[in-house]
């Protein structure tokens, strides 16, 4: 009798342990570990994912990492993309949806040498020189349309700031929360202009997943997004622990630049100063504007319905 009882107890404890095993999820970033992902690393480091039974593995990306396609093809469950990528991929039949937007104001900008005396983006485009910008990207097409008859010469954007440091006539796209700070640390002051100010302001650094997966796993997705939100609230308050981890992963950015970036990006994340529980939430109006802009730029042939592009948690 004792043997049977012992066997049942072992069986029950095994089943319980099985049930408590955390769900493994891969979370793909589209760039190296930087403060734009600080909240995700904070959520991971604080053990909040584990508390909600989620075993999240954050993987870094690089130039051209096809995160949207990886998510749409279920190679990873969650990933980071730009809002315009979500619209374009949906218009092409991919089943992806946005769940959380880190940046309410998109920090994409153009960084120039201050000694050139530019006062606006118009000056950058209407003066001779070189501008490194991602060819064919929505922000590049938007700016080209915005400033017809431009004089600047476009060259490919390869990431990094090596050419900016050596060429005084060189301007480049940047996150105003990142590259200008690195350039300054390397002894080259940089001036930056926000593309959002010119009228193109999609949500930046957006968490995406497959719509079908989200529909089937509502609780898990809600848990993940709530944890991410808590991570960001904590990162805005105390960025040091995540920065200490990220600086080891990304040697291109030193601890001081990370600290500065975390401070500078606060206003881009908080936007108009929404309460903490609203962090990362998106509106139909913003998505609708983006759809119309991408349609006008001829980047999509059909307009996806705005409320199918995102889901707030």
């Amino acid at each position, binding site marked *: 009798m004792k043997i049977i009882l012992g066997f049942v107890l072992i069986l029950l404890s095994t089943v319980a342990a099985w049930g408590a095993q955390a769900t493994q999820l891969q979370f793909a970033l589209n760039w190296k570990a930087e403060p734009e992902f600080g909240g995700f690393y904070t959520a991971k480091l604080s053990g909040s994912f584990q508390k909600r039974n989620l075993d999240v593995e954050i993987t870094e990306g690089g130039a051209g990492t096809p995160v949207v396609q990886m998510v749409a*093809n279920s190679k990873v469950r969650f990933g980071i993309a730009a809002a315009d990528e979500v619209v*374009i991929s949906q218009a*092409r*039949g*991919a089943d992806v949806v946005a769940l959380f937007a880190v940046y309410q104001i998109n920090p994409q900008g153009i960084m120039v040498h201050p000694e050139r005396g530019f006062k606006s983006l118009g000056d950058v485009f209407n003066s001779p020189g070189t501008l490194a910008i991602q*060819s*064919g990207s929505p922000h590049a097409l938007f700016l080209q349309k915005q400033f017809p008859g431009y004089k600047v010469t*476009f060259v*490919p954007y390869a990431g990094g700031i090596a050419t900016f440091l050596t060429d005084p006539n060189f301007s480049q796209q940047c996150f105003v929360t990142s590259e200008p700070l690195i350039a300054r640390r390397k002894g080259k002051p940089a001036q930056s202009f926000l593309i959002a100010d010119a009228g193109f302001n999609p949500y930046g650094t957006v968490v995406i997943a497959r719509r079908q997966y989200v529909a089937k796993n509502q609780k898990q997705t809600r848990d993940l997004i709530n944890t991410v939100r808590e991570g960001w609230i904590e990162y805005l308050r105390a960025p040091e622990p995540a920065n200490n981890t990220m600086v080891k992963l990304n040697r291109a950015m030193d601890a001081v630049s990370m600290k500065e970036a975390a401070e500078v990006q606060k206003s881009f994340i908080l936007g108009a100063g929404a309460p903490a529980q609203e962090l990362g939430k998106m509106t139909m109006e913003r998505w609708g504007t983006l759809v119309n802009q991408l349609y006008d730029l001829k980047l999509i042939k059909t307009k996806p319905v705005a409320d199918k592009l995102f889901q707030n948690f």
Partner: protein
Amino acid sequence: MNFKTKISSLLPPLLPLILGMALAEITVRSGWVPSYLIPAPSEVIRSLIDDRVELAVAAWTTLSSALAGLLLSFTTGTLFAIALSASDLARRAFYPYAVFFQTVPIISIAPLLVIWFGFGQPTVIASAAIVSVFPIIASTLLGLKSTEPALIDLFTLYSASARQMLYMLKIPFALPQIFSGLRIASGLAVVGAIVGEFIGGGGLGSVVDSARTQQRIDRVFAAVLISALLGAVLVGAVNLISALTLGSWHISERKAS
């Protein structure tokens, strides 16, 4: 060759292509594979038609850069191989560096090329030349070191100078190997040019970069198809020059009677 024979010789390479395209079309159209991962061949053909002007201009830019890069690598590679063949000491001193040069991944040094040569064609030509130079060095050196010893003895017997030995014996004898290296290098020059264009701008590399950003994989495939054709055209041109140069005397190009 009559019409029937021509068709029967074309059928073996064409059949897998037609079957492969039909299979891809069915797979994508039936929804087994989403079109944002692999485009249907019909979409690629549509992109080739719709974007023909942009693709033609880009193809010409890539071809001209690849040709310039190939010319540069052929000139420097041949001269380098001749110098190495002239002295065992030089070969032992420098050949390992040529091998090392071959193993440098071009994609990792391409951003440096921009810093050294600037944006645009110079960087693209340099990239094409770097990628394509090693097969030329290796093949030319092999050819120059493979001259029949009996012929060298004969030239020595007739008191031929080193220059005469090189121009009248060693180089003609090495031509089949030189063309062999050039065939490999011509395909690589196109690859090198496209990698250079990713960083330096212009050409098919730029088209691929832009299309990838816009998730237009039909256009990516169209550009890749054209770049493969460019490689084939260059290899074909080398084959033609090889046949014209060697056809009258070398067994490798002589037609079976």
